[in-house]
């Protein structure tokens, strides 16, 4: 089961028989990956989660490694890889994973696996209309499958695995189906992309996407340091300067150059360097057109492509018009954590605190997806977390997410989905604060919420009496899990 690939797509007739020389070559490089994964349940955060299996593809690259999609191996508990022409199954481990670019590198413990394999090499960005072949293990059978098509479009697209990152993406019209994920897309004997997502047949026909080599190379370079830092970002929003009056008012000539900085994230690379109202004229000496595009390697691409290829700590140089004066701004790139609240999270159990049958959880995309919250305040906190810089006061938005009914909380049910502001007069800025506040001895625990909402009052004696009863009744193994990765 390949999660981000559309499942409803019908398998198109493949040109599949392994006869052409190219397919014989690929048999030395293609890997079938079978993953057993465990999806955490954000509604029952103490449960280890439901177990499911899935099949994807991968391929051997230099250094005795296997490249595949992050979504093929996310939340994996056990991974097995197989080669064509070898009946043995080899356990594998995730060495590096980039959820923001949907790529992962696996290593196989048994080095014998790589005998008789041939690492594939990477090509460039294929030309529009040029033919490519896609290899993998899509639904419709057990064995290797190949489909062919041409390059349809090169554009920025959202990577559905994280749900929030967009990077350069290449669209092709070869059939790509669940199970193709992680498989190589080949042209002239080189990898030009990794097949990773598409639309179901009832939305669009013959629309599949691959991760192109600039994104792959960036990932491989990033992990070369032994750690995946991930993408960096200017962390600004900009507005295209297409309106003549606006251009004149800002002191710009009619040269179709420059975009307006409309917001600057106070946690991002540009904080203190750029201001709302600045006009960006060039980036690393590439002039920025009024629609935000730059010329790069002979192609017009979105200006973010310049930053896309950079790494944590790399400098970027911007030419800026501020208050009608030109100046040069240099900044060091880093990530922008607040946006991660709206990204899918993997490989880390949900964090929570249970106290008196009240479940407290930090707000996240996984949380919102699990609970399908309709509460207007909570939806605002989620949707405007970045734009209204809610993270300044609430780096983690702590929600009373659930109430396990028990006499201790019999009158609190209407407080579900309220956002915790204070516990015993201590400001709550994260789940750790919640755990700490409840760990302190106090006769009463007074939980105050954001807005004009009555407080919840719990007596320590009542909570202590209820503790074993609640944990027994609701099969709770742990009262809290606060160690996991914090979105930051």
């Amino acid at each position, binding site marked *: 089961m390949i999660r981000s690939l559309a499942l409803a797509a019908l398998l198109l007739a493949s040109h599949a028989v392994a006869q052409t020389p190219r397919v014989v070559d690929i048999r030395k490089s293609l890997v079938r990956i079978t993953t057993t994964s465990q999806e955490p349940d954000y509604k029952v955060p103490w449960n280890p989660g439901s177990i499911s299996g899935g099949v994807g593809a991968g391929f051997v690259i230099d250094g005795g490694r296997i490249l595949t999609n992050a979504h093929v191996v996310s939340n994996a508990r056990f991974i097995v890889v197989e080669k064509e022409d070898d009946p043995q199954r080899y356990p594998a481990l995730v060495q590096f994973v980039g959820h923001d670019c949907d790529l992962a590198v696996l290593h196989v413990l048994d080095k014998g696996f790589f005998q008789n394999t041939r690492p594939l090499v990477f090509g460039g960005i294929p030309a529009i209309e040029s033919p490519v072949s896609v290899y993998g293990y899509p639904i419709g059978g057990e064995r290797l499958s190949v489909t062919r098509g041409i390059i349809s479009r090169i554009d920025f697209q959202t990577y559905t695995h994280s749900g929030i990152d967009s990077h350069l993406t290449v669209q092709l019209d070869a059939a790509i189906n669940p199970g193709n994920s992680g498989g190589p897309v080949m042209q002239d004997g080189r990898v030009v992309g990794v097949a990773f997502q598409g639309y179901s047949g009832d939305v669009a026909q013959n629309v599949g996407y691959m991760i192109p080599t600039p994104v792959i190379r960036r990932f491989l370079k990033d992990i070369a340091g032994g750690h995946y830092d991930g993408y960096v970002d200017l962390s600004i*929003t900009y*507005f*295209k*300067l*297409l*309106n*003549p*009056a*606006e251009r*004149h*008012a*800002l002191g710009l000539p009619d040269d179709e150059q420059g975009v*307006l900085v*409309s*917001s600057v994230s106070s946690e991002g690379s540009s904080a203190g360097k750029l201001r*709302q*109202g600045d006009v960006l004229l060039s980036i690393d000496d590439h002039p920025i057109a009024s629609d935000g595009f730059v010329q790069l390697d002979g192609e017009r691409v979105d200006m973010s492509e310049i930053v896309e290829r950079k790494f944590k700590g790399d400098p970027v140089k911007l030419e800026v018009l501020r208050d009608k004066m030109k100046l040069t701004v240099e900044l060091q790139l880093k990530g922008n954590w607040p946006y991660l609240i709206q990204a899918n999270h993997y490989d880390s159990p949900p964090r929570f605190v249970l106290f008196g049958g009240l479940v407290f959880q930090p707000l996240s995309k996984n949380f919102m997806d699990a609970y399908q919250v*309709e509460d*207007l*305040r909570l*939806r*605002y906190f989620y*949707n*405007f977390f970045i*734009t209204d810089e809610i993270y300044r006061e609430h780096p983690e938005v702590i929600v009373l997410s659930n109430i396990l009914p028990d006499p*201790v909380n*019999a*009158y*609190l049910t*209407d407080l579900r989905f309220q956002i915790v502001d204070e516990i015993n007069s201590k400001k709550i800025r994260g789940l750790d604060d919640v755990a700490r506040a409840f760990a302190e001895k106090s006769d*009463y625990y*007074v939980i105050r919420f954001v*807005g*004009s*909402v*009555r*407080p919840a*009052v*719990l*007596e320590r004696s*009542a909570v202590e009496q209820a503790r074993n009863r609640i944990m027994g009744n609701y099969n709770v193994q742990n009262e809290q899990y606060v160690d996991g990765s914090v979105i930051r």
Partner: protein
Amino acid sequence: MKLLLIGFCVALGFVRLTLAEPEPTPKDERTPKEEPASQEQKSSVVRVNSTNQAFDFFRPWSKLAPFSRRGLGAVIDGGKILVTAELVANSNYIELEKSDGGEKSIATVDVIDYEANLATLRPTHPEFLENLQALQTTTDVKTGDTLSVLQMESNGTPVSTKALVTTVEVGRYAIEDSGYLMFRLSCPLQFRENSFTLPIVKDNKLAAFLMRYDSRSQTVDAIASPVIEHFLSAAAQVPYKGFPRAGIGFSPTRDPQLRRYLKLQDSDGGVYVNQVERNGPAAKAGIKEGDVLLAIDDKQVDPDGDYLHPIYGKLSITHLTTTEAYPGQKVVMTILRNGVREKISVELFRRSLSDYVVEPYSVGVPPRYYILGGLIFQELTRQYLREWGNNWLKDAPQRLVYYDRFQSELFPEKRKIVFLSQILPTRDTVGYEQISNLVVKKLNGQRILNLDQFAQAAAHPEEGYHKIEFEDDPHEIYLDANQVEQDAAQLQKIYSLPALQRL
């Protein structure tokens, strides 16, 4: 994208949202509970036909298609007819029709209160009411009583249907924010080509007015006679002062842990005040969030916020401050603050629509707008958000929905929300096509707290440009002030706009 959306949205008027209209049933299937109306009943009801036309909040210079509503009005003292406000909301033309003979007269709205959902009408010819009998009201209605809902056949014959009073409670009227005393009745009603605005009588006295009917559960929500009496007595004075409110939100104190923490005795009762409306009566008197309200005058408040009414039994204290009292009247609230009892005198008053940041209803008043170079600016109203359809809480722009819902918490000052609703594309708006529903912070450097301020600031462009600042991306845009002025007449002509502003 947004413009497309607008094309699909059918405006839902305030009236239509609150009415559950059942499937019409054949007229001759008379249920055993129906009987011909008595002579007294016959001579005190008239049919009211109202042609209503609401404003189009997406095109604030236009009105939507007119539609008709029919209901029954009750003849009352003073040569007036009592109906629900919904029946005649946004009315262009009101016609009265007698049960016998179908004699007609034109009528006008005398007093209307959308919150209490009541209105009085006055026939243009007073002699129209000459041989009709005014209905008196009765508040003597108890759970278990049988009342009669009056209807009229299409030929004019009045029909009466028995209805059992099942509940007496404070409930939501036509507007979300207002709750008043309501009689809930169980009653099988047939749909008789009029909408459900029907008088309900007890012993030939007006006991209630039907405002909602659910055909599946066969239940009626009716405006209770104490509310009618309050309305009529307020309507007898000029200016109409309406219903007051205390301006607090409260929650129960049943939770024993909360009671011990608040040091409440079991005998105390009391509710926890979790919200105090800014500049509302309670706030002015010094009531604070966190106070426990123990009593209003001599009425003890129980932990659910009810008191004991001599006729209706347990009833929400809201009834005391909205219906039993009149604007200008004082009530004494006994509160517990930090374990100490205090008595605070609160002068109740009505919250006028202009006191809301986002007006919860907009009926009969044309929406204000100001068009600058093809950009349409409006003051936010809930009616605007409602134009997104039944699912408006999810479908309407989320910042605007949030501002509406939490307006009393978010805005300390008296203000309106001015926002760019949409764009009529012109050469002035090139590059701005994608922006819509953005809240305005400033125009030409001036902070904007209402549309009048916006219009004033629009008279003072800076260095030849209008600079408009928003709360969201793109945060600032510019218009060429001279060009906007030159293009104004053309803009009006191309889009057939009757005027570029209505303030």
